[in-house]
């Protein structure tokens, strides 16, 4: 087995390819060969890396040095200086502001982010996502081996229950409890589904977990299968994530080739198979019952729950549906024990949480931190402060379906309970930071347009409610609203959140509700004074009517 100490990732998005990425990639292979490093350095590719023409981009791990733009002529220098001698080449490094967030955070990862604690992202960006050897070298498949050879299924479930792991897909349901429901429900076969549909605006954690560390998801699904007595698993990957899909497909092949997936895993008589499935572009298919319908080949529409998937899931059989991040925690829990995991977090919010930071901050990207950190810390430390030194106005937490935390809440510790008490939800972990130039009416419009387009159409309050709310906010933003509109908003959003079938309809008006709670005067200014205080809305300032009579 090779002992890989470094890895080189070459960007291969369309722009990079146009700028010679292919030649750069081959140059690296040749140079590495030349320096006799082939057994120690792996070369791989990465996509969607830049917004700029300074490509191709090359990332060298473990130092996470990002070079860009790299020309064929530069390759010799990088291999000699960085890989052979161990010195980063500052003159070739990329300019920070030209990087997309997910690359940017990698760049500053070492040393710069002191309190990050990595469980889920432990290996992402460090191992070669295409190499099972790499994964194994970094403790991969230890947990599965331990489970299959030394633990009974019930013990696996007990350990996960004890760890206090809660679902990271939005609802925060205790994972161990979900598993034990399925394990104890009569009926076979049973199924494991990994929900990788990740469509919540501003959320991209699952994609990076899969792209960076696909084997951890494979291992975790297999452990889940063992725990609940399932032999088939499905991973439902958002259609717009082709690289994640390829990585998973490749990881499945490799795991099968190594006897770590498929029949007689680890030589035991446990069999488990994983089938990847690509979504077709509907946000609603992230909702578990819609996801199941879609997997079954039907129109992706949520159905009434109960019965929950735990009793009536895929093809009507008991099914575990877990989020990618949830599952990615499982191998570490089994390896290090539930107690270790609990110690990372707080008693009611165990383990870490992955957040995506975006919006008006200097530094956007992905972080994994234990609970208890505050919004102020997130913005100051990881976000490197507000962009252009503007003032913080609000943070939308948990994606478009999430809540609005005004600046006044920025010192509240971020854990499930404290946030819940403050009326804030963490949801998918997206943190949209908005500065003083953000108009809340405009923000509400954007959010509602999203839901109006993504609602599946089943429930009356959601289908027509999202349409009406969008229309109303649109009117208000044009200065054509009236105060009675706000009464209608209240009436509609109340019906939406109370009597819609699924989370989409129930939460589509959450942000608007919070906006009216914290920023009512600003909304009323659009209606009464016909002005947008921030100046973001297309209000046509009209003269009061009595003036135009003359």
């Amino acid at each position, binding site marked *: 087995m090779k002992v890989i100490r470094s890895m080189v990732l070459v960007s291969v998005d369309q722009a990079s390819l146009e700028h010679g990425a292919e030649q750069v990639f081959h140059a690296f292979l040749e140079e590495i060969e030349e320096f006799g490093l082939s057994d120690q350095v792996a070369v791989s590719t990465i996509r969607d890396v830049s917004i700029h023409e300074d490509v191709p981009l090359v990332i060298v791990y473990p130092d996470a040095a990002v070079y860009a733009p790299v020309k064929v002529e530069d390759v010799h220098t990088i291999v000699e200086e960085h890989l052979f001698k161990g010195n980063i080449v500052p003159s070739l490094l990329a300019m920070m502001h030209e990087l997309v967030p997910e690359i940017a955070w990698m760049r500053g990862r070492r040393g710069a982010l002191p309190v990050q604690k990595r469980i889920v992202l432990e290996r992402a960006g460090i191992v070669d996502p295409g190499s099972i050897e790499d994964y194994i070298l970094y403790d991969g498949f230890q947990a599965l081996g331990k489970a299959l050879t030394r633990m009974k299924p019930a013990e696996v479930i007990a350990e996960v229950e004890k760890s206090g792991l809660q679902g990271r897909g939005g609802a925060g349901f205790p994972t161990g409890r979900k598993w034990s429901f399925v394990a104890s429900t009569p009926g076979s076969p049973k199924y494991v589904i990994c929900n990788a549909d990740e469509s919540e605006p501003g959320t991209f954690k699952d994609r990076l977990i899969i792209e960076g560390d696909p084997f951890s998801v494979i291992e975790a699904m297999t452990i889940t299968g063992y725990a609940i007595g399932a032999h088939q698993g499905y991973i439902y990957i958002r259609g717009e994530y082709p690289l994640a899909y390829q990585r998973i497909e490749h990881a499945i092949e490799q795991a099968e080739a190594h006897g770590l997936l498929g029949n007689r895993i680890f030589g035991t008589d446990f069999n488990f198979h994983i089938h990847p499935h690509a979504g077709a572009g*509907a946000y*609603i298919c992230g909702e578990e019952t819609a996801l199941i319908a879609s997997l079954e080949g039907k*129109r992706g*529409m949520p*159905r*009434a729950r*109960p019965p929950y998937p735990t009793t009536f899931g895929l093809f009507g059989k008991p099914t575990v549906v877990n989020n990618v991040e949830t599952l990615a925690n499982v191998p570490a829990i089994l390896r290090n024990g539930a107690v270790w995991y609990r110690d990372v977090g707080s008693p009611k919010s165990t383990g870490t949480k992955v957040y995506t930071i975006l919006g008006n901050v200097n530094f956007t990207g992905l972080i994994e931190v234990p609970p208890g950190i505050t919004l102020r810390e997130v913005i100051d430390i990881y976000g490197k402060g507000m962009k252009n030194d503007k003032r913080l106005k609000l943070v939308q937490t948990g994606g478009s379906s999430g809540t609005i935390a005004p600046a006044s809440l920025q010192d509240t510790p971020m854990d499930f309970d404290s946030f819940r008490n403050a009326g804030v939800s963490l949801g998918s972990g997206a943190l949209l930071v908005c500065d003083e130039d953000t108009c809340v009416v405009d923000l509400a419009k954007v959010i509602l347009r999203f839901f*109006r*387009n*993504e*609602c*599946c*159409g*089943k*429930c*009356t*309050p959601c*289908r*027509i*409610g*999202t*349409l*009406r709310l969008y229309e109303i906010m649109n009117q208000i933003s044009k200065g054509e609203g009236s105060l009675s509109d706000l009464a209608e908003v209240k*009436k*509609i959003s*109340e*019906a939406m959140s*109370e*009597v*819609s*079938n699924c989370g989409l309809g*129930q939460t589509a008006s959450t942000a608007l509700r919070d906006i009216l709670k914290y920023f009512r005067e600003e909304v009323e200014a659009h209606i009464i004074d016909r002005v947008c205080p921030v100046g973001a809305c297309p209000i046509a300032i009209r003269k009061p009517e009595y003036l135009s009579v003359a």
Partner: protein
Amino acid sequence: MISLTINGQTVEVPENTTILKAAEQARIVIPTLCHHKDLTPYGGCRLCSVDIHGLRLPATACTMLVSPGMIVSTESPALTRYRRTILELLLVRFYDAGYTHIAGMPALDTQFAHWVNYYGIDMKSAMARKPFRQIDGDPNPFIWVDKGKCIMCTRCVRACAEVQARFVWTQAYRGYDLRIVSGSATTMMQARCESCGACVAHCPTGALDNKMSVKLGPPDRLVTTICPYCGVGCQLELNIKDDVPGGRVLRVTSNSKAPINGDHLCVKGRYGYDFIHSPLRLKRPRIRKYILEGTARPENRGPWVEVDWECALDVAAKGLRNARDKYGPHSIGLLASGKCLNEENYLMNKLARQVLGTNNIDCCDHTSHASTVIGLEATMELIAQSNSLEDVAGQAKSILVIGSNTTEQHPIFGVKLRRAVLHRGCKLVVAHPDFINMSEFATIRLIHKPGTEAALVNGLMYIILKNEWEDHAFIEKYTQGFDEFKQSIEGFTPGHVADITGVDENVLHKSAEILAKERPMAVVWSVDLTHHSTGRVNVSSLINLQLLLGNLGVAGGGLIPLRCQNNSQGACDMGGHPAFYPGYQSVELPATRKKFEAAWGKGIPTKAGMNAMEMMTAAAEGRLRALYILGEDLVGGALDGNQLRRSLGNCDFVVLEAVFESETSRHADVLLPGVTFAEKTGTFTNTERRIQMVHHAVAPQGESRADWKIIKELAHRIKSNGTDGQYTHADWDYGDTSQIMNEIAMLTPIYAGITHERLERTDNLQWPVKNLSHPGTPTLSVEHLRNARGRFITARYDEDVTSAQTT
């Protein structure tokens, strides 16, 4: 049982009951829109949301199942608010252009309008300001599509998929743009719509409506009656408007309480009613001019003359009486009708036997199902389908459909079979020379050469016997003639049968295995099997198959000959048969004859008469001089029309009762205008022996008269000697058809428990109904086998001369 509380009331319901159903049981009304009792719950409109103690959010009563101790409240100020909001939101995307009845006003008689009104919303002012979808949105000739009135409840989508098993409608797009589309947004017809109107029947808003009557407004009254088309016997509702004397039919609707079909009808039943008011109806009696003039009958019988009833009836009575007096009673033949009431067919039988003194009576339908009647006669005491339709559709594990294009000939039953396949995985083996719609749903399709059915079935039995899949115990206990039968099957080796039928040996083997192993298995056939010169042998082979596999007397098994006409079964039951009095009582058994003599008087004939085909031959040969045909187009519907034209042409005197001119009326001397099913009251008996009430809905058109009145008048005129009071039922003084039914019940053991009054109370009586408290007999048991033992019939296969001629 689960006990729960709804609005403070304790309710006990079985497990897996929804809150909605439990509430219904407690007579608590919860508003609904997307729910329909025939369809799987959807939970989309959210109108039925109710509070459940302990749950954070309200739940939908139509989807939520009860659990022990559940505390439900169906009303609260908040719930009322949500419901009103839901309805207001629906109206945001709802536009009624106001064409249905009162000009410019939205329809107020729909389920949707009901709830809008109930929650105090003014439809007209709350709905969309202008149309946003095309109003007459599909070229389907029967179904009106106005998507502006669609509230996306998806009842049409589910009705098409679950009721009609056709999958024409589906949802497309999403969110506020969600709509129903047919196919991939093609026309309904391109999406293979069968125009059954199930979607119309299930739509709560009028977005889908009946095109022919969409602008005719609401009816003044509804009349529940039975469909006049096929033997399935669906119940339907005639919508009558009384704006013309006697009323007129606006449209046909379905009724969810209908015993066989619920809200389901086929295109014929729902949309084929225009014949009732057709201008082509016969409205006055006619006789041929030569009769009036007293001249000789011309070759083509010459021109018609319209006359009054007195004249026509006198002429008809005189013609029949003359034939009897001159050539003897056996020179007259009568044909009963599968289109007419039981009561009318009974009168035909009585007219033949009591008044005219002949057993020459049959029903026209026997020209097509004669082989079924003859075949069954050999094995069964009662000549009828052995099991209920629902029983086959609901319980058979496998079904052999042979010689029946079920979805075309008996649409509602065909669709029930499609559902059996889709919903419960019933295995279907379809044998038909064509690829028919049923073939699409078949586990195995046998596409055999026409006329080789008997060889095919014999081949299947050969394989069953070789593998010892037969039911030994049943054969032992309930059959006779097995050994000879077994020998006779020896020649039907798979190779030989494959040669004859053109069906692959492997396929034969697989079919035999399914049919033998997936039991109970039912055999369904119809005219495509009997309309052959080999029809009788075909039917015998099927009876052998069911005896061999022991599929008689069990629910889900049986012999299922689907009778063509709405009352084919009843016409035969009522003595429309040369060998049987009503109820399959043999005319040759002295004991039965005595019973009828005591009722009708002396002099009824002692020997079985001629059947329809024999009568036709006799007419051609000059032995049959006069014919009286009830309500049938004998020639138009016959297998060999030329032969019949010759026979009728040669007949001295033909009386026809009909509603239209036809091929047959060209050969008649007297044409008496009868009425359609909509203009009379009485009973029909469907193919599964179910006796159902038919109700008078509109006045007879023109001077036409109910057929029973016509027969009665003829009887009065032909009869020379009055009654002397010593016979119980010699009279013909019927005031209405219920009195005729009372007489039928007195004389017919299988109808003994039937009265109109009882049928008005319950719809579920399948004969034998032994007395007034007997509940009827959905499945004929093994005791109805002739002599309690089913006789195997020697296996045969003769080449079909009719199809041999045509190929």
